[in-house]
């Protein structure tokens, strides 16, 4: 005990000192100071906000492991961050039949898994067949791949996919699916394979260690087959990529500032609160960038089966009553973009003439009056036919941001004479209530994906139980547009259709589109290759550390 005490005492004195040394070094960086060949032995330390459930891409349902998959596994294609165009990864080339129902991929002959065995058409077929295997716990993607009829091995390095319908997202779905080595993953019960915790792929990194709940450490694959491809020669410059698992955001922010994390995608709150100031910016890149499909959006969705929300004017008025500008100013320091629809402003699928709805209590009250909502009994609440204007909003309990927006909206509505009660629920209970239509209104966010398809949220056929059209939105023209757009492979024509769709949504206001979620990145300035930002964002594969700035490789040499 005594020794422990002295050790502690020494510690208290020493630790702040060592911390100082580190930070001084980092602050001396100037972006143009260094050039030359990248150092190959530095590490990059990143952040995960939760321990992933599994590192098996077929079984995975959470968003955390998805950061690790592209490093450990290869997909047939990838979308080049700089150009935003599909490029071959495992596939050297590909071919789509005129009918749009058959896709052929030709696999690179030198592609190898981590254990040295070649990647073949059999592996690709095996990986896709898993989706339909009833013993595999992949319900979440089964639905998604319903149009995939059959996968056929044409030759050892050629594979053909048969699809039941023509759909513009098929290339993305097939191209971005991880390929697993058959000879490893076909043994035993797929759901409980040891490889679910120690993945084997063909990617540039190999899992070195997964310290449950603390970190996931990847080590560069020295024999990565892709290094022989000329365009990728300068990629994968880090000896190790480590993901630190920290559940508390504020703690992660602190860790970044202390230099214990090099790179993270912050949430907007952190970005404006924790990662500011000249000192910070001298050490870190602070990037906000836009991508064609954005990063998803937050919304308040009215249950259109409730009578009070069936009027378009009422919905428009309710949208006017959300003081988004004020929230943006005070919570986000103007970081956010006011959303005008399901896609970010500037997206070619969005009509550029649509303007965000400003906060306007007077105009809202006027609209409500036209619909018969006035305070006739003088109790401070609007009413119509004896019914007070009163409803309940559901949201999930675990997010600070949602809670704040709900509280502010409640206050703004209160001023207009509308009572909104708040109900924060646990995820499962929340999902149960909204899928069963057991709500007045709810606040949630939709994530986005490459070239996203609004069909499943807005088509009236999707308002059944389990579908994503939970507000029961129905508009015949919208249904028509969404159906045609799916099979329209020509992008310009498709965008035209979607522009019309976006105009209808803006007019009908079935959601209050709150904010677009910006793409944000904070990264240590010891990295280069972060700028310029490509169409789809910075290209993480190309990041590197110039000589003299590496922090970690040296540690190991000692």
């Amino acid at each position: 005990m005594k020794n422990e005490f002295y050790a502690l005492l020494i510690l208290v004195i020493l630790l702040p000192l060592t911390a100082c040394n580190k930070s001084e070094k980092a602050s001396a960086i100037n972006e143009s100071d260094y050039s030359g060949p990248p150092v190959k032995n530095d590490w990059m330390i990143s952040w995960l906000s939760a321990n992933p459930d599994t590192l098996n891409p077929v079984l995975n349902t959470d968003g955390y492991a998805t950061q690790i998959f592209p490093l450990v596994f290869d997909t047939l294609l990838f979308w080049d961050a700089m150009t935003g165009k599909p490029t071959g990864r495992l596939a050297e080339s590909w071919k789509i039949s005129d009918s749009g129902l058959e896709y052929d991929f030709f696999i690179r002959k030198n592609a190898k898994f981590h254990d040295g065995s070649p990647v073949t058409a059999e592996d690709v077929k095996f990986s896709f067949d898993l989706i339909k295997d009833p013993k595999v716990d992949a319900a979440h993607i089964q639905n998604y791949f319903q149009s995939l009829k059959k996968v056929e091995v044409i030759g050892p390095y050629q594979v053909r996919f048969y699809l039941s319908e023509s759909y513009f997202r098929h290339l993305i779905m097939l191209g971005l699916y991880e390929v697993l080595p058959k000879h490893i993953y076909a043994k035993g019960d797929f759901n409980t394979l040891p490889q679910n915790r120690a993945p084997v792929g063909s990617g540039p990194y190999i899992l070195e260690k997964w310290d449950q709940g603390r970190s996931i450490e990847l080590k560069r694959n020295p024999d990565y087959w892709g290094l022989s491809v000329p365009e990728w020669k300068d990629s994968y410059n880090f000896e190790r990529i480590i993901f630190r698992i920290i559940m508390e955001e504020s703690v992660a922010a602190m860790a970044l500032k202390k230099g214990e994390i090099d790179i993270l995608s912050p949430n907007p709150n952190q970005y404006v609160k924790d990662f500011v100031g000249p000192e910070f910016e001298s050490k870190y890149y602070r990037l906000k960038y836009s991508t064609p499909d954005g990063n998803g959006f937050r919304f308040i969705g009215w249950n259109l089966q409730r009578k009070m929300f069936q009027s378009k004017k009422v919905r428009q008025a309710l949208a006017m009553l959300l003081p988004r500008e004020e929230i943006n100013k005070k919570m986000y320091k103007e970081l956010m973009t006011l959303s005008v629809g399901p896609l970010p402003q500037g997206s070619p699928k969005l009509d550029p003439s649509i303007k965000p709805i400003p906060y306007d209590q007077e105009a809202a009250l006027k609209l409500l009056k036209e619909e018969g909502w006035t305070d006739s009994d003088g109790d401070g609440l609007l009413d119509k036919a004896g019914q007070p204007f009163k409803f309940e909003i559901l949201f999930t309990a675990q997010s600070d941001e949602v809670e704040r927006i709900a509280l502010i909206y409640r206050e703004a509505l209160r001023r207009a004479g509308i009572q909104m009660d708040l109900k924060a629920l646990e995820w499962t209970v929340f999902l149960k209530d909204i899928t069963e239509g057991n709500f007045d209104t709810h606040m949630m966010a939709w994530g986005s994906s490459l070239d996203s398809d609004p069909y499943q949220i807005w088509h009236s056929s999707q308002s059944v139980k389990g579908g994503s059209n939970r507000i029961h939105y129905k508009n015949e023209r919208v249904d028509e547009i969404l159906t045609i757009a799916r099979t329209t492979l020509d992008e310009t024509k498709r965008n035209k259709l979607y522009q019309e769709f976006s105009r209808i949504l803006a007019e009908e206001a079935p959601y209050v589109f709150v904010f677009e979620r910006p793409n944000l990145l904070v990264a240590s300035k010891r990295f280069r290759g972060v700028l310029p930002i490509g169409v789809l964002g910075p290209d993480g594969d190309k990041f590197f550390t110039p000589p003299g700035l590496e922090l970690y490789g040296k540690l190991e040499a000692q």
Partner: protein
Amino acid sequence: MKAYILKRFLLLFLTLWGITLCSFVMLQLAPGSPLEMKIQRGKDGSLGEKSAVSEEVIQRLRVQYHLDKPILVRYGLWLKDIARLDFGTSFADHRPVISKIAERVPISLIFGISGIIIALLLGIPLGLLSGAHPNTWLDRSVAFGSIAFYALPSYVLGILLLTFLGGGEFLNLFPIYGIQSDAYSSLSLVGKILDRLHHFVLPCICYSLGGLAFIAQQQRASILDALNQDYIRTARAKGLPEWLVFMKHAFRNSLIPTVTIVGAMLPGILGASVIIEVLFSIPGLGLLSFESLLQRDYPTIMANFTIGSLLSLAGIFLSDLLYVIVDPRISFD
């Protein structure tokens, strides 16, 4: 004696059985299904493209997770597994629950036990000191202090420690999360120990405070009690020096109740740890139970309930047993 222990043991199992049955039924009757959670959960509250689910898929999952059978049948299955120490497979990550728990237990145990040890090492001397000088300022401040510590919730203390020592607008002395830093694996042995200790300080303060107050109070009461006994008077009468009387007779006897209390404190290791582990992101049993709750990971939640109540029962059992062993005057025959 043996018969008594046997009887207690049987009762213990009866109670444990009751607790598991109650928790099992409670979990199964809870609204909402872990399956939907599993399929539809997205990152930070958003839902993705792949989130739509057909009834057919749900039904298949229900069969896969045995959720289609009646509750009592499932409870029977669970009991059968538990007899082989098999807590099932986690809904969240398909790992055996027992191994998830096994990797968390040492961490919680280290914090819990060192919390108790620190509480003992500080609490006993404090209690003795104040008991030796009853009704002085020293005694009063120890009494006041122990009530104050006892009344101080661990989360209030934790938040204040983080605010003032965790590197906000005040001092930046201690790490604020986890049990080791990044470069841990590259540190020397001494460095590793120091690193662990550094991470250890703040949570450990939170862990030991309540116990410290409790033990100090207990020790004070028992030393006063011991000093009033006849044998002390006898010892004094035969002319033993006061310190010898105190140390040899009073002190030793006064330890008995304190030792039994330690047994009763054991179950607290799990209960108290949820808040502290969440606050400091310590990957122990408490954090696991909190996470499994949010993930609706029923097998893990069940395991946590079972272990928690087992610990609590064992604590009572142990403190009874210790009482008998430490104090030969007590017997249950």
